Structure formats: C-alpha cells, structure tokens
C-alpha cells in the first residue's frame, strides 16, 4: 500500500494509532508490571510504573499453591484436543455444505449456530447429572467433549464460509480429468483450504482456552484448566494484587504468545466470507 501521503499526515496517524493501541493494551501492561512488584508496592497510594523492587516472589507463591504446569497442560489438551476433534467432524460437514448446497443448507447452518445460544447456566444441572452417570466429572476427556460441542457450530460455519470462496470450477475441471475424489480433496482442495483451516483452528483454540463456565463447574482437582487456576486466586482474604497479577499473567501468557506468533495465520482466514 504505497500511497503517497505527506509526512505530517503520516506522523499524525501513527501517533494517534499508537496512543489508542496503548490505551487498549494498558490493562495487560498493568498485569505484566504488577506481577513483578511486591504486594505493598502494588497497592501503594502513589502508583509506580516500573516495579521498584523487581521480584519473582509472586510466581513462586502462586506455584506453591496451585500447580501451574498441571493446569496449563489441561488447558492445552482441552483446547487443542477439542478443536482437532471439531475439525475432524466439521471439515466434511462444511465441505458438503459448501460444494453440494441444498435449499436447506442455510437453515441447517443457522440451526447449528442457534445451539450456541443455549445459556450454559440453564443446562448446568442436566449436563452435570449426565456427566456424573457417565463418570465424566473432573476428567479431561469429558471437558474436551463439552468444548468440542460448544465450538463445533463456529468451526463448521467458519470452514463453510471459507470453503465457499474456493472457486468451484477448479474442482469441476479436476473431476473431468478423471481424478479420484480423494485426489481431488488432497491435491486441490486442501492446499486452498489450509489457511482457512489454520485460522479456524487458532480461533477455536482461543475460544476454548478462554471458556470459563464449564471448565470450572465440571472439574475439581485433576482436570482443572487455567480458568480454574485463576479462580483460586481471585478475592482471597486480602487483596494480593501482585499475586493475582502473576497468576493472571501465567494464565494468559501461553495463549497470548500463541496469538502473537500466529497472528498472520489467524487473520488470513478470519473473514467468515466477509471479503469478496
């Protein structure tokens, strides 16, 4: 985008953009800085910007109370696992809807999305009872199943909108060449679909990672994810802002880093068919 604009305009836009970005980022910055402060400094009447007595104590205290690695591992298994299963179920469905649409395709899609509108609090007890009877309470696989179900509609919809953008004539042409269906998928569709699948994967890992209702209510000690981890640090006796910040930082760091590094891939397919 090499548009010619006067330098002054460019400086103006740059300054404005950075100011807004920093305002939006300030809550995360606050966590980042407070995590390394002492408790006394964190609630000081005159706030400091950088930690005056840089300390790693808070992280030690957090780990001593709650096993971070265990919770993080659970979070990774549940979010990545549920998304992968969701893709396995969702890709064929989205493929079928995109390339062999019927009159009812739109209705089916909307119906799928509407299953996401069921408020979790309203169905907690039924799900809890089912989980109890199937011995799924406090298990990683139980949680993975729930996450898969919750995100499946979004997965299918995202893939569908992306697949639809793939020009159908290429497929028809390859079919005329006598290519097998499998070849058609592997050699023609997949390369074109990969960006969409990657971005679907990333978005749904983020959504599953941040889910905070089922992960807390359906787990106790063993399958707790990072949302349960953070729940043990909110409002204890005394404020402990620094420890809370350290725990918060630990909870969001993996997904934040993943998001930053894969930002390009995430954005590329994050169009929901909105770009013609």
């Amino acid at each position, binding site marked *: 985008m090499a548009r010619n604009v006067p330098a002054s305009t460019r400086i103006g836009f*740059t300054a404005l953009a*950075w100011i807004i970005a920093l305002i939006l980022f300030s809550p995360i910055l606050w966590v980042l800085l407070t995590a390394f402060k002492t408790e006394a400094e964190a609630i000081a009447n005159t706030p400091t910007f950088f930690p005056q007595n840089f300390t790693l104590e808070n992280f030690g205290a957090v780990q001593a109370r709650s096993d971070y690695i265990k919770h993080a591992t659970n979070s990774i298994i549940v979010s990545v696992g549920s998304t992968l299963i969701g893709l396995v179920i969702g890709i064929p469905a989205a493929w079928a809807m995109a390339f*062999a649409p019927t009159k009812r*395709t739109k209705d089916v899609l909307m119906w799928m999305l509407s*299953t996401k509108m069921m408020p979790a609090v*309203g*169905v907690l007890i039924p799900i809890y009872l089912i989980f109890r009877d199937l011995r799924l309470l406090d298990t990683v696989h139980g949680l993975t199943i729930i996450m898969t179900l919750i995100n499946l509609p979004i997965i299918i919809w995202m893939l569908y909108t992306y697949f639809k953008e793939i020009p159908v004539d290429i497929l028809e042409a390859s079919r005329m060449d006598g290519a097998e269906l499998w070849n058609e998928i592997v050699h023609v569709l997949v390369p074109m679909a990969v960006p969409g699948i990657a971005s679907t994967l990333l978005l749904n890992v983020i959504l599953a990672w941040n889910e905070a209702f089922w992960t807390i209510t359906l787990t106790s000690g063993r399958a707790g994810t990072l949302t349960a981890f953070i729940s043990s640090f909110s409002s204890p006796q005394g404020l402990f802002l620094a420890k809370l910040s350290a725990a918060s930082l630990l909870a969001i760091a993996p997904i934040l880093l993943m998001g930053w590094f894969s930002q390009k891939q995430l954005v590329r397919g994050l169009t929901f068919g909105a770009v013609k």
Partner: protein
Amino acid sequence: MATAQTRTLSRVMMAPAVIVLLIWMIVPLVMTLWFSFQNYSLINPMMTGFAGWANYVYVIGDPSFTQALVNTLILVGGVLAITVVGGVLLAMLLDQPIWGQGLLRIIVISPFFVMPPVAALIWKNGFMHPGYGMLGHLWKFFGLQPVDWFNQYPLFSVIVIVAWQWLPFATLILLTAIQSLSEEQREAAEMDGANALNRFRYIILPHMARAITIVILIQTIFLLGIFAEIRVTTGGGPGYASTNITFLVFRTGILSNDIGAGSAGGVVAVIIANIVAIFLMRAVGKNLDA
C-alpha cells in the same frame, strides 16, 4: 450439478456433525424442559412432583425479570455499538500508512486473548476501583473525585469490559475487509474527486457491510450469554442494575439451588435468544447470502 451420488455423499459427510449437534441440543433441552415442570430443589429434597407452570410463573414474576431483559438488550446493543463503530474507525486508522503497523496489530488484538474472568479481575482491581484502581489515581491526578464505577455506572462498566475484549475481534475482521478493497477502487474514487466523507459513505462502508454483519452475528451469540464478567465484578448489582437474563437464571437456578425455577429460566432464556436471533437475521441477514 448435484447428482444423486454427491447428494448421498454430502449427507454422509454432514451426518456426524448433525447427529452430534442434535444430541447436544435435544438431550439437555429435553431435560431442562422436564425439570422446568418439576418441583426440584437441590437443597430441599421435600420439594418434589409435578409443578405445572409454577416455575415459569415464579421466574417471570421475579421482580428483576423485566429489568434483566432490558439489561440484556442494553448490554448486547451497547457492546455491539462500541465494537462496530470503534472497530470501523480503528480499522480505517490501521489501514493508513503508519509506522509499526505489524506491531500495532499485535498490540491491538491482545485483549481478545485474555480470558473473561481475568479481564474482569484486571478491570475491577487494577482500574475501576475508586481506592486503588488506576482510573481512580488518574482522576485524582487531575484533581477530580474518583468515580466509583461499579456502583454509579454498573451496567456501563460491564459494557466497557466486554467491549474491550471484543473490539480487537471486530477490528481485525473489519481491517481485513478494508484491505481487500482493491487499489483500483480506491483510486477510481479518488479520481472522481470524491471527498473523504463521501468515499467512506459510498465506497468503504458498503464494502464492509458483510463484515459488519458477521461481526454483529458472531458477537451477539457470545454477548447474549455474558456471565463471568458480571459475576466477578458487580454480582448483578447494585440491586438488579447489572443483572442480565443469564445472571438471573444463575441466581435462581444455582445460587438458590432451585433447579425447577432455574430450568424454567433457562427455557425462557433460550426463547429470548431465539427471538433476538430471528430479528437479527431479518435485520442483517440480507447481507449474508449463506
């Protein structure tokens, strides 16, 4: 073009997703419907038997029901307004030739990665508390009385927190849409001598219409169920000032352990969500040739 063979194939391919989602929808829904007509309290085993419409009467007769309904709509509408308008403006700004665009994008997208309870805790303790929050310090710095956000503007405060989380999402989608506007289209518009406002109105905005629709649709699905942010910050109060339908269901069903009434509330919430969805489809569905 759809031969009988491809139709069968596509049915087979869709089957797992449809079956799984059907089960996921029907089983809890049927159980919830069943419970909603039962006297069922977790903590009072004496409450048993068929309840008729009593649970529904109880929930809809809740003094906070109307307010919760209104709050739900304000919450969804408020967040949508902030994220769509803010997202369009921010996307257009980021589309300008500015230094550090890549880094800026990373920074702007960050709030989307923060899990709701953490976001709520940060805003509550780090920013909005009048005593030790950063906003309080900022107000004091300018010689003003710190604002007690969660008491004076409870619903607005929740909207701010939620909007903060969703603004990056809206911005990203809208930015992708703007950037797909071809250079020729822009140049043509510039050559026509259209001023900035007209360019925005007749070229950029129509081009983004689909993206805006998508943003509204996806966000509404998530915003109807806003819960963690309210629970962590205001607890639905003061009074019922920040109670939405989800929180009302939580209060009746879980806090009071009244599964019958909670289930009735859940059914009511599903009906409301579907009404909102139908309106939404009518209003914006034209842009969505799914």
